[in-house]
């Protein structure tokens, strides 16, 4: 974002061409989560809380290492722990860092009725502007990943910002900064895709994970958070990652065709009664009809 505006177009008194001119620079950012090298240390969870100014709340023990059952309005980043019986590798503990996917086609943004409550930056980050949020919760219905969470105290909805504040200053998101194993990467979308594909190929060829692959869901136009999975054919095993997420058809129908049909019907109805009045006028009552006296009609 800030990098885009500071790209140099012309230089005074400069001999030769402008450095970098003619290059097609990519501003789309992306977070890559390699679930195969995650150790579940939860440093990213802590970093997220610290950077965004939230304190630890009560955790829930449910016979796993998972901090709590689901992300919360003040807990945007949660590693999901799932036991999985792999055909070749036996029992595996799958660990997936869950947070907003920053979809290219964000269901939350499509569903939102409040002017300016959800924005998508040119770098792909989908950000909630709580000052404009009215707390209706439609975004929660539009999201196929169940990410936006309502705060009963603020009466507004919150989610991961991909540290848009840090990214705008050329820094990487707090979770990336804190990761000790390097399973989290941050860069341009194409670089992260290359890195992810290379890692997936390595897993397929050298680590006998024949189904290893990259999770970058096409149903939402791709995402600005992508995963490397040991088994890309079964994302559901990673704590319910949907295999083909899309904006719910109900929301699509509601927000697109139904809206235009409804607007047309309302305007047509109003014009219709106006036309009726012009053509037929009012129903008036002649006072002598019933031979009754008194009062205007």
């Amino acid at each position, binding site marked *: 974002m800030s990098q885009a505006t500071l790209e140099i177009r012309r230089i005074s008194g400069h001999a030769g061409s402008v450095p970098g001119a003619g290059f097609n620079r990519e501003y789309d950012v992306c977070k890559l989560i390699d679930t195969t090298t995650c150790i579940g240390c939860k440093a990213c969870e802590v970093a997220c809380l610290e950077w965004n100014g939230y304190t630890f709340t009560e955790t829930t023990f449910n016979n796993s290492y998972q901090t709590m059952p689901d992300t919360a309005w003040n807990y945007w980043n949660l590693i999901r722990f799932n036991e999985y019986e792999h055909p070749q590798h036996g029992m595996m503990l799958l660990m997936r860092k869950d947070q907003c996917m920053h979809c290219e086609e964000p269901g939350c943004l499509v569903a939102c*009725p*409040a*002017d300016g409550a959800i924005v998508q930056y040119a770098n792909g980050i989908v950000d909630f502007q709580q000052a*404009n949020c*009215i*707390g*209706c*919760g*439609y975004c*929660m*219905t539009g999201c196929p990943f*169940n990410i936006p969470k*309502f705060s009963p105290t603020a*009466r507004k909805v919150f989610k991961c910002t991909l540290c848009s504040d840090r990214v705008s200053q050329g820094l990487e998101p707090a979770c990336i900064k804190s990761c000790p194993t390097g399973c989290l990467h941050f860069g341009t979308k194409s670089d992260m895709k290359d890195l992810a594909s290379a890692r997936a190929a390595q897993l397929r060829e050298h680590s006998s994970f024949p189904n290893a692959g990259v999770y970058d869901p096409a149903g939402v136009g791709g995402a600005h958070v992508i995963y490397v999975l040991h088994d890309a054919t079964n994302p559901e095993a990673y704590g319910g990652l949907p295999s083909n997420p899309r904006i*719910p*058809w*109900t*929301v699509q*129908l*509601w927000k697109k065709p*139904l*809206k235009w049909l*409804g*607007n047309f*019907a*309302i305007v047509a*109805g*109003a014009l219709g*009664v106006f036309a*009726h*009045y012009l053509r*037929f*006028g*009012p*129903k*008036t*009552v*002649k*006072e*002598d*009809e*019933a*031979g*009754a*006296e*008194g*009062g*205007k*009609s």
Partner: protein
Amino acid sequence: MSSEPYLLPNGRVLRYTFRERLIHWFAGVSYVYLLLTGLAFWSPWLFWLAFVCGGDTVSRELHPWFGVLFTVAVILMYRMWGRDMKETPHDKSWWENIGHYIRNQDELMPSADRFNPGQKLLFWGFFVNGLLLLITGVILWFPQSVPLFLRGLAGIVHAICALLTIGLFIIHVYMGTAMERGAFGSVIRGDVSRAWAAKHHRTWFENIVRDSTSRR
């Protein structure tokens, strides 16, 4: 009902009692607030209505509560008018002659009782859609505790039912203010002229006259 003194001393006819007018406007005011705030959430072009209705977050907070108020109003109207709104075999011929009604050829219309079949349609349209709006509205009110698919479905049904009531509302307001002269006064002051009663609700008027003469 027939024990009310419907023929007023000034020669006019009492169409709606104070209680009826009060409940009608209780429903009317709560519906208009729901309509304006609902339209604000319906279209970005109308989001400014949310600010007219108290502010964007205020509109969102109050819309469901006005829905509760409107439901109460609908229940009161059902208790008050439910009996008069029952469909009768006579209604069929009214609908068959609806073309005459639209063209203001009222002399060709079969006589109507207290409410004509069009008014009955309005009442039951608001009653049924109001019920569906309440159910889907509660789902949209508490999205956290409802499965995703049901929420999306509730959004669609809520919008369709609201659009149907808007259609009824446009016709109702047009007829009550511009088209049927005397109708607006009846729901404000409560009375109509004898001629008005005889023209638009002849069966109802004749029953009133008969009741008052037999009582004498």
